[in-house]
């Protein structure tokens, strides 16, 4: 692989949340886990589901549906926890399903169209159009920072 293609392409993990597809750069993803026992942590934000034992490391888990104010759904067979590392943080995201690993052409990433749900837009770094799919690229810093 040459440098040119590396710069042009962005490898992402694609996951499903409600009826949309989202993407996170693979470099921030440490792993994808099946749903496991979550210990509730009292007096935290509503979307913090609690902590899990990730091979000996206590890792907090966020329900992305609740984080984005999407309707809460029951846990399905496909529900996954995507483990994200960001700087010194390690956090799990609960998503409906983890679908794909894709290479996105950097040129296909554009600004978020203004009309899409206004509540989410803070978390969105951009949108990538892939043939007939629309991937929403997440702004991880914003997702992990508390809402002001």
């Amino acid at each position, binding site marked *: 692989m040459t440098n040119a293609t590396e710069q042009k392409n962005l490898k992402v993990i694609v996951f499903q949340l409600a009826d949309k597809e989202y993407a996170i750069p693979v470099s921030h993803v440490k792993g994808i886990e099946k749903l496991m*026992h979550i*210990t*509730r*942590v*009292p*007096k*935290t934000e509503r979307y*913090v589901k*609690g*902590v*899990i*034992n990730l*091979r*000996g*490391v*206590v*890792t*907090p888990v966020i329900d992305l549906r609740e984080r984005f104010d999407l309707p809460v759904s029951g846990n399905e067979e496909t529900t996954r926890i995507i483990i994200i590392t960001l700087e*010194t*943080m*390690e*956090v799990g995201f609960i998503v409906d399903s983890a679908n794909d690993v894709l290479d996105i052409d950097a040129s296909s990433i554009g600004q978020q169209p203004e009309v899409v749900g206004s509540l989410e837009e803070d978390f969105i770094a951009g949108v990538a159009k892939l043939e007939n799919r629309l991937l929403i690229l997440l702004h991880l810093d914003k997702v*992990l920072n508390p809402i002001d």
Partner: protein
Amino acid sequence: MELNQYLEMFIEESKEHLQACSEHLLELEKNPEDLTIVGEIFRSAHTLKGMAATMGFEDLADLTHKMENILDAIRNSKIKVNAEILDVVFESVDHLEEMVFDIADGGDGKHDVQATVEKLKRIEAGEPATAASEPMPGQEVAAAMVVNESEQPAEAPELKLSYDDFEKTVILQSSEQEFNAYEITVALREDCLLKAARVFMVFEILEKNGDVIKSTPTVDKLEEEQFDSVFHVAFISKEPAEDLQKMLMKVSEVDRVVVNKIERDVFVTKTAAIEVPAEEVQPQPAIQETVTAVSEEQPKKAASAKNNNSKSGHASSKTIRVNIERLDILMNLFEELAIDRGRLLSIAGDVNHGELNETVERMSRTMGDLQNIVLTMRMVPVDTVFNRFPKMVRQLSRDLNKKIELKIVGAETELDRTVIDEIGDPLVHLIRNSVDHGIESPEVRRAKGKPEEGTVELRAYHSGNYVFIEIEDDGAGINRDKVLAKALSKGIVTHEQSLTMTDKQINELIMASGFSTADVISDVSGRGVGLDVVKTTIESLGGNISIESTQNVGSVFSIQLPLTLSIISVMLVEIEQEIYAIPLSSIIETSIIRHSDILNAHNQKVIDFRGKVVPLVFLEEIFEVPRAEQKNDGFHSVVIVRKGDKLAGLVVDSFIGQQEIVLKSLGNYLTNIFAISGATILGNGKVALIVDCNALMK
């Protein structure tokens, strides 16, 4: 050369060498005549210099070099050790330490040491001609001797060993029995790898051919490789000097062997040499022609070997440095294994297969041992903290004009690395306090009929799951009345309280927050400079501190610390489906109370617990535990916890039991969760939260 990868190693080793320097300097101060100690310091300094130069820290290397010159002069008896010289050397070591710490903090290790360098130079130059005329301070004895031989062949060689009366008698008698007494100097090659082995071979040859009377350094030291490259042996044999010399040269890696005959008259009187009987004159040429089966450059080489003594002189340490993060990872992996073991055990129980059961049981035992090892790997002797105190006390006692002896007991006691890192500062504080406020000046001590020299004893020992560190001084003790008066005036205690306080409670007032302010340092006879900070730090480590003191007799500060911070004993409790861990250190006891025992005081539910009114905290409310249905069987399980002298009763659904757990943090995302101090992983793989009892009590 890419040096960054070595930087950490360099810093660690430099610290070790400097520590060794400090320790040996203190020792030297007590035994100024013992030149082997100087040798030790020299060795450390020399290695440090070499490392610093390699790493490109010129200032560091330069100052070390200047210090080394002084040490070398001392070692070669050109300068006599005195307090002034030691002060300057101590000062140099301090500077070197600062430089190393600067480098550790990412600095360049530059430091203004002009004043110290001047002092070092003055000491070096302030010596009589011998020091000045000597071109190279490290000039080896052997080199001087070769000159001696060639220029004055007729004179008996000077003895390099000193002998006591017994040894002299042996040598004199041996010559009467037609034995020859020799003084043999063996120089090993500077690149010799197994010095102890060579020494052994040399001694083996010698012992086949005669008797070794004495060696310098001593045989023990030689076996431990505690010498540079040259050693001397006094030896009695019938063999001629030349043969001995040849035999010894057969040992590989021996650079040079010098065999000198010891003439009996050396002991009698030197001038008597002329009157030596004829038969004894005979062997003399043999002595002088001797020996040096060596080419001309050799003496020089030997000299440089001596200067380059370096690392090989150290007994090799059988430890390895491991990044603590790796140990944490190991610990996590181990826990995973432990959890799987639990599952395996229960599966084996269900299957009930003989061989499987046996295997699983054996595995459990092995894992038990493994667990011990993993945990003890994090343990470090408390010496790593204690070792800085002798120098500190020395400096303090000089600054304050007091005479103080610091005794250290139990420095080998081991503590978890994380505790070690935290405990240093509180100890510095307490020792300063003992030295500053505890120990009286020599005049006062004399007036009180105490010895002028005060004693501060620092000791550490294990007891149960705790380590105790105690600082005891034989100083003035705490003035109860003054402390009480101060506490009353500051409003820390009320007059009523003060009437019922025990002496111990009063002593401990000096650690109450708000007790000490800068202006009390001098006017309260006792102590109390920010001791509340010490108390807080120790309590944050899960330990506690207490004080015993008798006026005019002394004080003991006793610190109790958990063996490790990563493992604590907890009481597991259940609320609905959730399991919480309450640290045993805050629990006083558990009890079951009737619903009807609960009283209402204002809006607070309380119980009467042994005559005390104790407020109740319903954990299910605090932690907002979702409840399927209200349970009410008329009883409540209560854990009585304490913070200082305040009590509270935590109401839970049921007790599960006591357990040792491994403390885990909640990570960087969830910080400052109310009343939760961390988490742990239970045997079933689930996470349980640890209750922070202190946060539940105001």
